[in-house]
């Protein structure tokens, strides 16, 4: 009897999990479906779900109109570059906060996070002026630096949380064996925190990939990533939903595939240390 209840509960849990999962995924699924419709089908009432004449026309139009590869390449460099640079800075920072904290460590952590509480537009003009002065407007290096700075508090916070789970005694043992600080971080701490670092890396790539304020405001023709590619298909005066959906699908496809293949790592990292 007890076994059958468990089975039933399991089935309900699975159904609820699938329902919630589908609900969350539905906007993306709808975007993908719309990208295969004509513009007239895209606004059809009642909405068409699966039974319509599937067409690749929107993808052909988008390919013809835009240099997708240039936008994609910029996105890869900007998202990848800012994340790697952020990790390089954040690992030693999080190490010091986790293992050699000072009286002010907690305050510093909170202060870092407070920079995320200001609306980005509040600092648009100062940053724009600095970029003009440094010649960084519409450059990939400029965006790498800005996105790294924006995501740095989150990277440090995440790594700090993971590092706190690692027993300090292990690092102490390494030090007693004569490991230098660099060796301790590189060969002892980092391998132990690989799941945490990997999930931080992935999450930050996703955040940087989707960042649509700075990437639109600090670029023009050369360094514009996929967010600008999507923005070029949005229009308040004209129904181009199918083309916009095709552009959006092309923009999210790489990150969706990356997320799909690394979901195990991502989940493992995000739940790292959750159960002791």
């Amino acid at each position, binding site marked *: 009897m007890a076994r059958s209840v468990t089975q039933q509960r399991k089935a309900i849990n699975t159904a609820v999990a699938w329902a919630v999962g589908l609900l969350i995924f539905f906007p993306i699924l709808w975007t993908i479906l719309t990208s295969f419709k004509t513009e007239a089908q895209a606004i059809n009432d009642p909405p068409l779900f699966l039974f319509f004449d599937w067409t690749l026309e929107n993808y052909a139009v988008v390919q013809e*109109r835009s240099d997708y590869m240039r936008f994609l390449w910029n996105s890869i460099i900007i998202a990848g570059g800012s994340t790697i640079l952020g990790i390089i800075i954040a690992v030693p920072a999080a190490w010091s906060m986790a293992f050699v904290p000072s009286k002010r460590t907690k305050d510093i952590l909170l202060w870092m996070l407070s920079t995320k509480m200001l609306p980005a537009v509040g600092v648009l003009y100062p940053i724009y002026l600095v970029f*003009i002065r440094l010649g960084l407007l519409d450059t990939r290096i400029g965006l790498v630096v800005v996105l790294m700075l924006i995501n740095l508090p989150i990277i440090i916070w995440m790594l700090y949380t993971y590092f706190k789970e690692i027993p300090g005694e292990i690092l102490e043992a390494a030090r007693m064996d004569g490991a230098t600080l660099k060796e301790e971080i590189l060969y002892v701490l980092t391998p132990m925190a690989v799941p945490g670092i990997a999930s931080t890396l992935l999450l930050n790539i996703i955040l940087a990939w989707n960042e649509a304020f700075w990437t639109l405001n600090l670029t023009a023709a050369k360094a*514009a990533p996929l967010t600008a590619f999507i923005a070029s298909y949005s229009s308040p005066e004209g129904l181009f939903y199918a083309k916009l959906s095709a552009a959006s699908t092309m923009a999210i496809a790489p990150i969706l595939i990356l997320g799909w293949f690394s979901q195990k790592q991502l989940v493992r990292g995000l739940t790292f240390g959750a159960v002791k």
Partner: protein
Amino acid sequence: MYLKNAFGAAATVSLLMTSSAIAETITIATVNNGDMIRMQGLTDDFTAKTGHEVEWVTLEENVLRQRVTTDITTKGGQFDIMTIGMYETPIWGKNGWLVPLNDLPADYDVDDILPAMRGGLSYDDTLYAAPFYGESSMIMYRTDLMEKAGLEMPEAPTWAFVANAARAMTDKDNEIYGICLRGKAGWGENMAFLTATSNAFGARWFDENWTAQFDSEEWATTLNFYIDLLNDAGPPGASNNGFNENLSLFQQGKCGMWIDATVAASFVTNPDDSTVADKVDFALAPDTGLDRRSNWLWAWALAIPAGTQKEGAAKEFIQWATSKEYIELVAENEGWANVPPGARTSLYENPNYKAVPFSEMTLKSILSADPLNPTVDAVPYVGVQFVAIPEFAGIASQVGQEFSAALAGQQTAEEALAKAQALTSEEMEAAGY
């Protein structure tokens, strides 16, 4: 011999320098709409004629506005040409941020630009942006539903007729709504429509001393009329509807009338997208007998930011893109229905274009809007559906939210007007008016 070689080398170097000075790559920021996309597709013609290459930055209208405003106010120099509208042009021209376009060659025929467009894109009689295409607003209506209601649409109807017809056409059980109008909050959304409509009712944003006028009888009449009409004969959720939502409703046969941009005429008459393409006709935006109609005036125009290093090439592009020859190039490639409308007088004298069903009403609508004298009573500002001052966009966005909330039934029209009056007065005082 030595001298000859030196001369030869010098000539080669100067030729190289000259050719590199001639062939430039210009960056153009523009919006995503049909006419602009067609222009991008025809850029090869410009490159073949001048040698200049073009890099396009296409953005959604509101993103573009923020992007180019940031760049021009900080002298960022990211763009050699910006696509801007009638709102920005006189303000930016006044501030010296744009290169004056007063030295265009005779064969460009600047006098051919429609006077209303030229007036709206000038400051102090100097043209600062060349219109690529222009639009007004007009009534698009279903001939079959109008006939069924036993009415006949005059060419220049009054609001009383439109309201009566809208109520008569409405059949909510069958999802037919007599009138679709903008309700979505935004200075370019519901406030563009309501500001233009208020002109017909004798209202105005400010009196000659820059005092806000939302506490006037005329504004109360305008807003109550609009809310009552949409409640009786509009689609459900009208407070969320902008241009695209209403276009979608109209194309699916759910609107009896729709008052919006003239550019929509080509969409609703296109049988590929519209289910009612063969049942649509057009009329001027309504009035109330006060000598002002409810139509607006807008142009997307090309302007050169002051300080660009490529002013010469940018001017050549503007001459090419806004010329009579460009219109013919589009007609040759895409047909006369797809040429950019509303910019040049000669287009409306062309017999090929006269055959396009909505061309005549578009021209009449454009000609009936006067940005320099938009209201019944005198005003200190320029602009039909906006007030050409830098503070307007911010103020109108807030007022638009109040009016949209009133349409949604969250507050009364009187409450919305009182809040609009208070916030406008406060903002204007803070701005030093």
